[in-house]
Each structure stands twice: as structure tokens, then as C-alpha cells.
């Protein structure tokens, strides 16, 4: 089970802005890595924009789960994991990361600016919490998370507005290279296990 991305995004307005993030793309092969990285950013923004203050949600898309937690200060924490990584642990980690970010950077630091805000702890956390058992220490200091409050969506499309389509989001995105856009179209054809090429 893997953590692939932890990021904090400013989400009061569209488009959302990545204030800081850390990725772990080591499980992706050399020549597809960059496309995956770009998609992580695009979909993190998409999910962050559609997470209201105080809300928690999990959005599944292909082999990933996007865990989101938005705060009234105007930011959202996003963690991308595989489906195996326990959602509860991801949200506990989100609480921790968002609290620490806001202690370091009050709203004034990002309300009127889109500049990146360095947050080096993310690098340590994405490595340390690959093992979800490490989150035991977080669970001891935080108050109980109410699991039932986390809304689950089975696709990104279900958080989009009526009429909005993922394919057009992908096609219009500035943050994606042409290669990545084609990669997305190809990836949609599901490969079943052990089928001849």
C-alpha cells in the first residue's frame, strides 16, 4: 500500500493553487512518471475546488483514492493513495498536516498571494507514513475522527458539476503536456490481468 502525494491547496477560488506538495513516484516506471505527476496535480486541484470548508471526502479514480479535507481558512489538504491504504489513517494524517501548515502560515500568508510556501515536513511524512502503523502516534493526540462524516465518491466525475466532464477538463488543462493528455486516453482502456498483449 502506498502514499503517492501529499499537498496543501488554496481552494477559495477556481482554479485551486498548489501551495506545497510532495510526491512519491518511485513505484511508477521511468517514462510514465512525469505524466502521472502532472495528473496528480490536476486532479488534486479538481477535488480541492469541490471540497467545502469543514468537509472531508474520499474520491476514487482508476487505481487511486484522493482524500480531501478542507478548512474554513481557505485551504484543503489532499492525500493521494492507492486503494489499499486505510482511509482513516490518511485522514488522520491530513488533520495533522493541515494543522501544522496553518500554525506555520496563517491566512494572511496566502490570502492574497499564490506563491509557493515551503513546507519541508511533507517530505518526511510521505516517507514515514508509507507504513500506516506509524500513524498510531497521531491517533493518540488527536480527537476521534468520525468516519461516517467522510463522503465517498466512486469517480471524480461524481464531484463535478452537472454537465462537466473529466475528458474536457483534461483536454483544457494547461498543466498537462500533450503526452499526458494522450496517456490519459490510453490509460482508460483497462488492461485485464494476464491477457496476451
Amino acid at each position, binding site marked *: 500500500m502506498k502514499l503517492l502525494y501529499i499537498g496543501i491547496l488554496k481552494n477559495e477560488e477556481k482554479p485551486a493553487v498548489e501551495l506545497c506538495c510532495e510526491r512519491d513516484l518511485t513505484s511508477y516506471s521511468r*517514462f510514465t512518471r512525469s505524466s502521472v505527476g502532472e495528473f496528480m496535480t490536476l486532479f488534486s486541484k479538481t477535488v480541492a475546488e469541490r471540497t467545502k470548508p469543514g468537509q472531508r471526502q474520499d474520491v476514487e479514480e482508476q487505481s487511486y483514492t484522493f482524500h480531501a479535507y478542507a478548512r474554513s481558512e481557505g485551504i484543503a489538504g489532499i492525500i493521494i493513495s492507492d486503494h489499499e491504504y486505510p482511509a*482513516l489513517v490518511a485522514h488522520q494524517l491530513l488533520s495533522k498536516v493541515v494543522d501544522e501548515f496553518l500554525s506555520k502560515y496563517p491566512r494572511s500568508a496566502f490570502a492574497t498571494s499564490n506563491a509557493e510556501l515551503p513546507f519541508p515536513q511533507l517530505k518526511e511524512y510521505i516517507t514515514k507514513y508509507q*507504513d*500506516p*502503523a506509524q500513524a*498510531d502516534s497521531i491517533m493518540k493526540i488527536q480527537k476521534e475522527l468520525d468516519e461516517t462524516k467522510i463522503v465517498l465518491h466512486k469517480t471524480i466525475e461524481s464531484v463535478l458539476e452537472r454537465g462537466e466532464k473529466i475528458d474536457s477538463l483534461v483536454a483544457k488543462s494547461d498543466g498537462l503536456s*500533450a503526452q499526458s*493528455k494522450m496517456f490519459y486516453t490510453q490509460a482508460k482502456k483497462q488492461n485485464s490481468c494476464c*491477457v496476451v498483449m
Partner: protein
Amino acid sequence: MPDVPKIPSTSPYKVLSDVFEKNKDSILEIEVLGSEVPLPEGQLILQDGLCVGIPKKVLAKAFVEARAIFMTRNHERVENEAILAATKVILLFDPEYLTASNYRKERFAVCAGRLGELTERRETVNSCRDTEMVDQELMLEMNFLDSILTSPLHRQTKSPTLWYHRFWIVSSTILPLHSTTLLGTGSRPDFHETKKRRDLQQMKDLLEREMAVVFKAAERHPHNYYAWQYLRRLLEVFTDEELPEYFATQKFNVSLKIRSELPIAVLSWCLANPSDASGWSFLTYFVYSRWLAPTPEKTDEIILHVMQFIMNVRWMGEAVWTFLKLAPRQSTERFRDAILEFGRAVQQFESSRHVEKAIAWMEKDHSDVQMSSAAL
């Protein structure tokens, strides 16, 4: 008999076989690219150090050329470099191409046959000629296999043909070559001591390497039955006292290493991939194995780690709970009760049919065991 076809230098086959040839001392990371990945003008593949990206169409064309070369082989046991090179590309595209993999075995067959005879007679294996040259060839063969079995190639990492090929190479050639059996008469004692030490170290290194390859392949392709099955068979050769090959291994020290380090390594892998039934299945096999099984106290420890994992992340998946229901038969008696209590406690606050089934099974098993001890 047809001649080997002439291959132009810009052909997909030539490009690929050159990559294999130039990097034969290393392990490559090979990826098959979809059509969306652009290649620079005039380039057929992408390469960055040991990472190689091959477009699907290029690989298919290379295979067709390689097969044409392969078809020109004669049926005498004469080694032909060009044919051997072709088999690498064939197996990369189609790992189930049995005749290509058998062709690759041929060059070790004579040595393997001789080693087999010596092992049967419990004789020293020092007398296999040119052992260093064979060693070198074997290392190159393993590098080639690693390059396919540990790369991000979804189908190839689970190839029964390639895993069997690996088993054949290791069990019929590498293991006997580095075994230290009864010492032959008339050889210098200090030479044998040195060889014994070196061989023992090579066995330990081999075991570590094989475990690492299996773990990697199992990650690349989840539920990788063939990778885990390979490890089961390999361990049996290392430890099963009744197999003739067993005699060929420096059994005592290597077995100790297996017993103490292997379960921890496998457990860590399983906890990082808790949905993978094949990994848990292997751990169960290990705990039940006649030759490998850790002590009941050690099994208790393993089960305790699993219980802690379940508590920490509230894991209710089937694979983990199947292990938890099967393992207690190999644990100490008092711990068996503790496991059942644990299961019942979990059932109180988490409803899951996997947990329910596991408890029901454990309860029935528990009462069966009690009934049979009462009957004794």
C-alpha cells in the same frame, strides 16, 4: 539449412539486442510504452541509464525478426551466439515461448547433467570443468532473467515458463556448483576450506538475492502465484533432507538463516501489501512447512505482529484474516485461546463477514482439537 537473415543496423531487433548485449552485466528496467509517448526523430526506443522504454509496435517487430533468426537453428547441441541473442528478444515479447527458453538451458545442460551425477554419488563437485566460466555464464543468465522478472512488465513478471526456467538454472546448476559435499580424496585441505567458506557465502548471497527478486516481482504483479511458488520450491531444495539435492547444500548454517530471517522479511512484505493473498498464503505455508517451520513461540510472535497491524489500521480484509484463522494451529496452546478472544473482541466493534467466517472457523477448529485431546 537457411542462413541467419541479415539484419540492418536500424532494425528494431538490432537496437534491442544491442541494448541487451551492452548491458549484460547489469539488470535493466524495461517498460513497454504506449503510443502516446513521443520518441525523438530517428529513435526506436528510449533509454536513460539502465531504464529502457520500448514502444509496443517496436517490440512486436523485433519479435518477428528474432523469431526468424531462431528458426534457422540446427538441432545439434552447438551453441550459436546469434540464436542465443534472438531468444532474449523472443522471451521479452513472449515469455511463454518454451522452445526459446529451452534453447537457453542447453548450454548448461552438460554441466547440469554431470553435477547431477556427482550429487547422486555424494561426491565433491569440484571436478566440474571450467567452473569459473560457467559461473560467469550463469551470472549473465540471472541478470537477463532479473531484467524481465523485476521490470514493470505486467505479464512477464508472472510468467510460469520464466519462473520454471529460473528454478531449473538455480537448482540444477548454481546450487550444486556451490555446494560443499563430502570432500574428495587427494585434494589440498586448505583449498577445500577456502572453497567451503566461499561456497557458504555464495549460498547465503543467493538466497538473499532470490528473496529480493521474488518480493520485487510479487510487487510488480500482485497475487503472483508463480513467483511465490518458485520460492517455495527453492526453499524445499535448500532444506528438505530427503531430496538428493539437499545433500549438496551446506545445510546447517543456511537453514538457520532461513528459519530466522525469512519469516520476518515475508511478514514485512505482507504487512505492506495486506490485500495480497499470495503473500499471506506463502507465510502460511512457511509456518506449516515440515522443514522450515519456526518454533511455536516464534509463530506466536508472527501472529502477534499481525494482530497489532489489524488493531492499528482496523484491517478487515480477507487475506489477513485467513492467515489469522489458519496460523493458530502452529502456535502455542495458550496463545491459540488469546487469538480467538482477540477475534471475538474485534467482532464486537467491526462487522465484517471475513472476520465472522474466520471466527466461526477458529471456534470449530478449537472445539475439534479439544474433542480429539479428550478422546486420547
